[in-house]
């Protein structure tokens, strides 16, 4: 038993240097909440690791998919929300498809991503989180997403611009953009949908604003 506990906590200590947590000290509250909200039987997971083995990006994650499910069972919510795992996940649904107990891993990650987006914790993969946010911003401005506008808005975000200048990839990205424009793959203007108003209303409602 001791081995299992220390094994599970290893990744943890490296990241945050926190004290060791005991299994079961959180109760079932978080597990029940996740099961209720996603409609997935998370307690059915018995750590066969098929999800992790099927995942094409598991080696970029700090908490592997099967571990993440165990974290949910143990109620370690903060660690999940802070992890890079939930943002790295591609939603390619390999894990969901191959789970023998139909634990919808991708759906659970998606739910955790929703939670993280509505929490005050800074996401570990900021550039990915900002991309999703930018996509929705552009979407609610014109009803449809124009790739040119999406990329412009994304690169002009202070965090992203700063990161690209630091990595020295900005020039390369600009050149790619110019090539795409020349090839006619990026269109400066595309039709807008008249649904903008409706979508804006729906979007602000989902964020709890009263319209």
């Amino acid at each position, binding site marked *: 038993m001791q081995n299992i506990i220390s094994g599970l906590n290893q990744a943890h200590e490296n990241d945050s240097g926190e004290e060791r947590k005991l299994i079961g000290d959180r109760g079932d509250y978080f597990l029940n909440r996740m099961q209720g909200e996603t409609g997935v039987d998370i307690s059915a997971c018995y750590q066969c690791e098929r999800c992790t083995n099927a995942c*094409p*990006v598991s080696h*970029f994650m700090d908490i592997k998919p099967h571990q993440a499910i165990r974290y949910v069972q143990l109620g370690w919510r903060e660690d999940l929300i802070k992890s890079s795992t939930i943002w*790295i996940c*591609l*939603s*390619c*649904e*390999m894990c*969901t*498809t191959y789970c023998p107990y139909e634990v*919808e891993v*991708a759906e659970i990650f*998606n*739910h955790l*991503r*929703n939670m993280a*987006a509505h929490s005050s914790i800074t996401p570990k*993969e900021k*550039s*990915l989180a*900002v*991309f*999703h*946010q930018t*996509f*929705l911003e552009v*979407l609610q401005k014109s*009803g*449809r*997403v*124009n*790739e*040119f506008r999406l*990329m412009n808005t*994304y690169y002009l975000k202070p965090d992203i611009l700063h990161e690209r200048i630091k990595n020295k*990839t900005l020039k390369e990205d600009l050149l*790619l953009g110019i*090539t*795409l424009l020349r*090839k*006619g*793959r*990026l*269109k400066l203007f*595309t*039709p807008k*949908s*008249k*649904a903008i108003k*409706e*979508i804006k209303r*729906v*979007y602000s409602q*989902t*964020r709890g604003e009263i319209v």
Partner: protein
Amino acid sequence: MRLSFYPGCSLEGMASDYARSIDAVFRNLGIDLVEIEDWSCCGATAAHSISQTMSVLLPARNLAAAEKMGLDLVSPCAMCFNRLRFSQNMIKKKVFDIPWPVTGNVRVHDMTRFLAEPPMIKSIKERILRPLNGLRVVCYYGCQMVRPPKITGYTDYENPQTIDRIAAAAGAQVIDWSYKATCCGASIGIARREIGESLTRRILQKAQQAGAEAIVVSCPLCQSNLDMIQKDRSKRHTPVFYFTEMLRLSFEEHGDPKWFKMHFTDPVPLLRAKGLLS
């Protein structure tokens, strides 16, 4: 035959060549595609990552518009298809309040499966003027079109056959390979390039190892990922076609090199070598 058509945002920008080839192919097949009036974006990955409600409501608006038309819906983009089907499921579960009148009963097809039905294959075969003899291709499906099977309705999600059947009907020599439904990284390459490239490069390598001269896809994002990764490689080029581009090529007496000017990897030399383009 008439169908309502949900093109999706990519077909107005990055994949406008896909849109043109779809138009040509369906006109040739005598099927009327009626674009949904004033359609809006399906929300893609961003919507379901940030707000589950938006991911149900955005496609629901388009489903409502399609129901008003009373026609079956066909979507060429894998992501749009997946989101529409997902939204339909959620509408039927009645979890969210939807501000538009929608029942979720409209039939949503993905374009490849619609064209791979036996009667459609038959009518494709009848219209082929110039079979793509000797062109060795692999077909690549990506994730969103086949997975999760509960939503997409694919039973052969490990080894899907729809594009294979269409490419074979067009006369191409279809090679079997193992990476048909492996993820290409989708939009992760924009924010984290090294992850996106590692995934896409592996698929490209495996396609070349299988002996393919070209890759046939149906998803706009898969096409641009697989195509753009080859932009500065002087080595072996493997053009990436949309499956409708292949069909159009076999449907028309004289192909036009202009059709492929949006591709990064120029397929014209390959097609000329095979005698498929004058």
